[in-house]
């Protein structure tokens, strides 16, 4: 089995895990919840194994390089990073309902990645031969993953607000305060990573092209995303911007994240044509 086949199988594991999270949170079945967590852990391990297997395969082909250099490989990393951030949340807050709102993201990322994009392992072009590659890509994607988690939490917040507060579901769900707090925590984690991703990207651009900032669409959109989350963090200093407005801002922020990640590559052209 090569890494591509393994990773396709893992995307189904993530799908099964998501189903189990949804079933466990609607039926309140603890047993089903454990199955969901187990599947998520299995997916995380397999996702990581697939990543390292692909790395080894590139070495066997004679041009070893870390698998972070095209759209497909970036989506494998995004799935892995999102699963990692979610599992950390689950370990820390002992709540599986958030899983129903986050676990579909690694499934979609891995599944769409292998369906839509070229999975061939290609060697590195001169522009990508740099030690900054690893630092830049990993910090960006940890940021993206934390924003994905904040997006899931914000969705849950909006759902919870629509529910009858005395109803059965509302009692199982985490409190609005906790969800608001988690939203903040996820963004306060993602923001420094995105900042570091932009900064390492700027240093790399300065080394490769001689300009640390050239208003390339990818750069510009990462700045737009950064500005939206910066607005979120500053808005929290005033009381009125917690809760619903914070959730809405978080969803807008994630939309900008997705556009930075995908939209720029397919709709706008620029220097950043790798992933």
């Amino acid at each position, binding site marked *: 089995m090569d890494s591509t086949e393994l990773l396709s199988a893992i995307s189904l594991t993530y799908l099964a895990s998501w189903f189990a999270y949804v079933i466990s949170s609607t039926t309140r079945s603890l047993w089903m919840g454990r199955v969901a967590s187990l599947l998520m852990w299995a997916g995380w391990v397999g996702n990581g194994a697939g990543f390292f297997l692909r790395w080894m395969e590139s070495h066997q082909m*004679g*041009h070893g390089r870390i698998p972070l250099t095209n759209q497909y490989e970036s989506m494998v990393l995004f799935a892995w990073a999102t699963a990692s951030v979610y599992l950390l949340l689950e370990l820390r807050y002992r709540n599986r309902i958030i899983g129903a709102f986050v676990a579909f993201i690694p499934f979609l990322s891995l599944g769409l990645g292998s369906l839509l994009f070229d999975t061939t392992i*290609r*060697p590195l*072009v*001169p*522009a990508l*031969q*740099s030690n900054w590659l690893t630092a830049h890509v990993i910090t960006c994607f940890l940021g993206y993953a934390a924003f994905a988690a904040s997006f899931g939490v914000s969705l849950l917040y909006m759902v919870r607000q629509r529910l009858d507060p005395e109803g059965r579901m509302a009692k199982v769900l985490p409190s609005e305060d906790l969800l608001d*707090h988690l939203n903040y925590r996820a963004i*306060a*984690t993602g*923001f*420094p990573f995105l*900042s*570091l991703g932009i*900064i390492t990207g*700027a*240093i790399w651009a*300065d*080394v*490769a*092209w*001689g*300009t*640390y*900032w050239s*208003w390339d*669409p990818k750069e*510009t*959109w990462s*700045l*737009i995303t950064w*500005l*939206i989350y*910066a*607005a979120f963090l*500053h*808005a929290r*200093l*005033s009381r009125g911007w917690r809760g619903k407005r914070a959730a809405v801002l978080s969803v807008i922020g994630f939309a900008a994240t997705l556009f930075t990640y995908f939209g*720029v590559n397919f709709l*706008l052209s620029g220097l950043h044509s790798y992933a």
Partner: protein
Amino acid sequence: MHPRKTETQSLWGRLASLRLTLALFLILAGASILGTLIPQNRPFQEYLEMYGSVATRIFKWAGLTDVYHSLWFMGILGLLVVHLVACSLQRLPATWKSLRTPQRPLSDGLLKSLPVVKRLELEAGVEEVVEALRGSAPRFFSRFKQEKIGETLHLLSQRGSWSRMGAYVAHMGVLGVLVGATIGFAFGFKGFVQIPEGKSVELVEERGSGKMVPLGFQVKCERFHVSSYPDGTPREYRSDLVFMKDGRRELEGALRVNHPISFGGYQFYQASYGISARVTFEAQKDSAGPPLKIIMEPGDTSAIDPQGQIVVRFLRYETDLQGRGPAVLLAHLRQDGHPVAGWVFQRDGKATIGGWSLKISHVEEHRWTGIQVKRDPGVWIVWVGCGLIMVGCAMAFLGVHRRIWIKLEPGKDGTHCWIAASSNRDIEGTKRQVEMLAEEFVKKGVRKSRG
């Protein structure tokens, strides 16, 4: 950090308001989006075709074809700088003062304002409780300062107050990035130069203005290499350069992508490459007499007749055009003043210009390397700014400023105990810590049997 009512009345106060912060973020984001939707810095003709003449004129007038360098965009960035300075000047003194003033013992007024308060009744006396705690957790206990007011004992602890400085450090960093970028924009240099293999240059074309700027030394490209992987993907672009001053070879080096070279205050970057040629033409009129030889390179202009009346310009060279071999794009001004251009092929071509027939008799190809040249005196300030942003983020998001007050008041029968706490960020964690502390007090506060 909350803006107070009195602050928002003055202009200075308004410049430091949270509302302006959010407005600036959203305006900058909106302007940036605009700049990615409208293609930037394209030729005028392209805008006319895309948007029509009215919209193009509006776009040009509003600077929308070069948003990020337009006056209004710079103005917003300038306002951001003023805003950052105003915020820091207005809030830093208060924050600094609150960090420097020692924690006051718990008063009734303070008690009401604190977010976490726990009240306990202990059986044991004050001294007994304190001794028991000191015995079981001396390290934790050493964090607390003791203060005795009358019979009442106050235990005070404050940690992580430095995390409140994080925001100021990060904001200094943003200022640094903007200042460094401005210095680079005002005093830096960006240029591009093509060096044919084996040749040297001392002038570089400045980007934007197109001015030829002397470097003060010569750069020679001895060789240019391209290598590929077995599947055809390019592996390396490399220019073997020699930097010379007054005829002396001062520095030799291989310039590769991601491996710039510094010399004489400039940085050099491998950017592109191409093939050019020195082409020998033969011109003849009516097949009479010996042909006239003309040697040209791309960009050259030359006459093809002895009288110097028929002038052509060498626009471009292609090493293999449409599979028909080497070809040259020539332009010529007709007698009616109309410019014409056409390809001349080496293999089968003969062009007729003004009664003269022109053919290519010899082609000498050479490769050229394209090198980006820059000088940026502000870049180190940008990197210091970036470093401060990250340090500030780490301080603000990893650190927690947490204060704990414990008040032990001797009662008629045992001790009245209050545990209170405040924190700038992690209220949940602070609550947990107070609960644990309360449990410990309840355990240690049990009256020991007195013999």
